[in-house]
Each structure stands twice: as structure tokens, then as C-alpha cells.
């Protein structure tokens, strides 16, 4: 009996051993891929940032050089405005769609989530069709007021593009969060005499807070790093990704481009990490 037990324990130990060893083997392809094409290049990027005439001070130049600082400020302001507007729009529509059943609701949800897979370049083109030289808004204002309104290539167009990009993603997160709200809390508030606005202010919106933090952080980080939309709109507004691109390809200023990229990466990473600490569940950024 004892012999049997011992042998069982040792086979179990053997199984665990080989299992850990096998798990280790399973990680080897990942380690190679990530080391070669992500970790090593990132290290190279950080090193290149400090390899220019300025040396390590290139990183300080992001904040000290006026042109870079203005660009950074523009980008942060634009990303913040996008985030706030997207959250407001997505909360109203998300709450409405999750709380009301009406004919055609599925179609509206499909319309709101259809642009999920659009890359930034396509979003830029959508904005050109809306507000560009041959755009819908231009045609409408020309007919109504005799004056062609074209703003696709300005800050307004960029803002509209970032909104277009982030609304579908944020709406999905908010709808999922609304679905998980406990309706009995609202009933209790109502039973205690709270009016409809008070219920929203004190029960519903605080309940959605984790979703606001998670999806807001993603909207912000995505807007900070968005390149395709700005590129398509060939905008004259200086945003950070466009600055990095022009520094790298037109000025061949590798060190500054690398330093700016590292700075941008740190900001977006920090925003998402903070949101994960304070917001609970996270959703990944894409595009």
C-alpha cells in the first residue's frame, strides 16, 4: 500500500515537472519573436533618442524646445477634447440604446458599431467626404448660405475624425457597462423619492465610472497616437505623430524622431496603466 502511494506521488511529481518544463518550451517561440521584433527594437529606439547632437538631453528638448512643446500641448488638448466629447456622446446613446427597445434598434446599433474596423486612413477619408472640398457639409452650406464650409483639413476636421474613430469603441464599452448595472439600486433611489435626474447623477453615472475611466483612457491614448487620420487629412495642424513622421522622413532627424516616439509611447502607456489601476477591467486599444 505504502509502496503504491509513494509511486503515485512520484509520478505526480514527474507529471508536474514535465508540465512545467513543457510550459517553458511553449514560451520559447514567444520569447524569440518578442525579443527580436519588440524588446530589442524598443531598446534601440530609446538609445537612438539619446544618440543625436543633444545626447540624452534630446528627451528634455521635447518639453524645452518651443516647437515640440507647442505640438505636444496641441496633441494633448485635442486628445482630451476628443475623450470628453466621445464620453458624453457615447453615454447618452449607450444608455438610450441599452434601456429602450424599439423597432430598428438592432439596425441603429449595427450602424454605430460598423466603423469599428476602419483604420485611421479610412476615417480621414470619411471626414473628407463630410467636410472636404467636395464634401457634404460644403455642398449643404453652399446651397443654404451661398458659402462653402470646408474644415476637414483644420483642427475641426481632425477633431471630427478622432470622434468618428472613438465613438463606436466607447459606445460598446458603455453599453456593456449599462447592461451590468443593478436595476434594483435605481428602484431603491426612486422609492426613496429621488427624481429622474438625481437617479442619473447619484446612481447611474457613478455606476458607470469604471467604464468611463477604461474607455476614456483608451480614447485618449488612441487620439494621442493616431497617425492615419492626420496623415490622410494632410492637416496643417501640428500633432505629435505627424511631427515624428516629418522629423524622421523629411528631416532625417532620427534622434529627435526616436526621442519624441519614446515620449509619446511613455505618455500613452502611462495613461492606460493609470486607468487599469483605477478603473478595474481594461479593454485594449486597437488601431
Amino acid at each position, binding site marked *: 500500500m505504502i509502496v503504491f502511494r509513494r509511486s503515485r506521488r512520484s509520478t505526480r511529481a514527474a507529471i508536474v515537472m514535465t508540465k512545467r518544463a513543457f510550459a517553458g518550451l511553449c514560451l520559447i517561440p514567444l520569447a524569440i519573436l518578442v525579443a527580436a521584433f519588440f524588446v530589442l527594437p524598443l531598446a534601440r*529606439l530609446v538609445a537612438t533618442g539619446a544618440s543625436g547632437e543633444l545626447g540624452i538631453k534630446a528627451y528634455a528638448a521635447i518639453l524645452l524646445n518651443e516647437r515640440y512643446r507647442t505640438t505636444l500641448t496641441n496633441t494633448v488638448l485635442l486628445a482630451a477634447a476628443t475623450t470628453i466629447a466621445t464620453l458624453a456622446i457615447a453615454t447618452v446613446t449607450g444608455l438610450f440604446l441599452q434601456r429602450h427597445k424599439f423597432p430598428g434598434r438592432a439596425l441603429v446599433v449595427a*450602424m454605430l458599431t460598423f466603423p469599428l474596423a476602419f483604420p485611421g486612413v479610412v476615417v480621414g477619408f470619411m471626414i473628407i467626404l463630410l467636410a472636404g472640398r467636395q464634401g457634404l457639409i460644403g455642398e449643404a452650406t453652399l446651397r443654404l448660405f451661398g458659402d462653402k464650409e470646408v474644415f476637414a483639413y483644420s483642427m475641426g476636421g481632425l477633431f471630427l475624425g478622432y470622434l468618428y474613430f472613438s465613438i463606436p469603441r466607447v459606445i460598446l464599452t458603455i453599453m456593456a457597462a449599462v447592461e451590468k448595472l443593478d436595476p434594483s439600486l435605481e428602484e431603491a433611489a426612486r422609492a426613496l423619492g429621488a427624481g429622474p435626474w438625481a437617479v442619473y447623477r447619484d446612481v447611474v453615472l457613478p455606476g458607470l465610472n469604471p467604464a468611463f475611466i477604461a474607455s476614456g483612457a483608451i480614447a485618449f491614448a488612441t487620439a494621442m*497616437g493616431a497617425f492615419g487620420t492626420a496623415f490622410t487629412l494632410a492637416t496643417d495642424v501640428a500633432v505629435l505623430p505627424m511631427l515624428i513622421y516629418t522629423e524622421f522622413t523629411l528631416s532625417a532627424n532620427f534622434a529627435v524622431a526616436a526621442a519624441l516616439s519614446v515620449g509619446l509611447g511613455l505618455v500613452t502607456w502611462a495613461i492606460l496603466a493609470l486607468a487599469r489601476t483605477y478603473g478595474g477591467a481594461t479593454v485594449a486599444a*486597437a488601431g
Partner: protein
Amino acid sequence: MRDRAIFAGQLIFTLLVAAFLIVPALLSMLAGVTANYFRGIRSGLTLQWVLQVWELYSDTIFRSFLIAFAALAVTLVVGVPAAYALHIRNDRLSRAVEEIITLPLAIPGLAIALALILTYGGFAGFRGSWLFILAGHAVFTLPFMVRAVLAVFATIDIKTLDEGAASLGAAPWRRFRDVIVPNARPGILAGSLMVVTLSLGEFNLTWMLSTPLTKTLPVGLADSYASMRLEVASAYTLVFFVMIIPLLIAMQIFAGTRGSAVGAAR
């Protein structure tokens, strides 16, 4: 009465938001088959722009599919075993690994592309081939595959299944093939849809990684937006929609049958 007014207000607002998103997409689909967009639909419907896109850009379409399926193959071979290992080990090291592989989601694609060019730009053969783009796509899409598979492992008792098979004498590789992979299938499918969709539409990395001889579809799109007439650019966008819509529908159906796992992976 007041409730009705609030309902109507919210409905109108929601419809306006939906219109903002869908009207330009419909306009571009229409423009792609209109003879002259400036003169409108009266100028007649035509497929000449779509044909022109095919002549000019069909190579980008094939290359995009090639890269998307290659990225899928890489993320399957690398990501599925890795997800299993991360789930089984569940120690500090595996959490650190998970953290590192999800970093590409938090860092803008432009920065990753610059990093890759600074590191491998000197290897002309590699730099000029589609494999260079694949490297970027594989790193960028990998976390989606790993997370989708991990999400499934979290809902089933994979350890007991694994140990059960082990006690029956199955070798680790066989257990992985015959027990783990079949059980992870929903996650693998969700992850695969994500990887292919993201790779087909990827621009931020690809614009920098591609060369004039290795353009992908989104790179060609940017090119056509800048230099082609609106009808051609629209027809090209239409081709992209036709490619991406079945994938989106598949994801929706899948999300419907499996709760919000796909949404969570995103």
C-alpha cells in the same frame, strides 16, 4: 408626456450620431460606383472605377491577405502555446511576460515601426520584403490572440483536464494537441478573427514598414486618397469594405453566441 419628449430627444440624438458615422461610409460606397461624383448619381452608375482600382492596386489586396494570413499563422503557432504556458504557470514571470506582450497595444504603431526600422533597416533584403511588415503585424496582433485564448482558459478548468489526460499517460505534446487546443477553440477562433481584421486594416505601422514595392491595401488607400480622383479613392475604399464586412459580421455572430468574449478581447 414629458417621458415621451425625453425619449424623442434621445432617439433623435442617437440617430444623428448614427448618421454621422454611416452617411460618409454610404457616400463613399456610392461615389465608388458613380460615373461622376461631382455631378451626382444622375451621371449614372458604373463599375469602371472598381475595375481601375483592380488594375492599379490588385497587388496590394493580395499582399494584404498574404500578410494577414501569415500573421494569423505566426500568432497561432506562437500565441496559443504561450497562452497555455502563461495560464499553467501563473507566476510572477508569466505576469511579466503578459505585460510585455500587451505593450504593443499601448505604444503607438509609429513608434514601433521606427524602432523596427532603426534596428533592421540595414538588412536591405529583409527591409524591402513583405516579411518586414509581417514582423510588425505579428508583434501588434499577438496580444489579441493570447488574450482571447486566455479568456477561454479562465472559464474552463484546464488544469483538471490536463492532469486527467496526464494521469491516463498522455505525453505533454499529445495533451496539448488533443485536449488543450480543442477546448481553447472558441478563443482561438475569436482571436483569429481579430488578428485577420486588424492586420488587413493596419496602417500606423505599415506605412513606415512598407516600400513602394510592398504596399498593402491601407497603404494603397492612403496613396489613392492623396493622388487619385475621388471616385477611384471611393471605389478602393469600397473594395476594403467588401473585404472587412464579412469579418465584422462573423465577429458579431460570434459575440452573440458567446456573450461578450470578443468584445472583452478587444
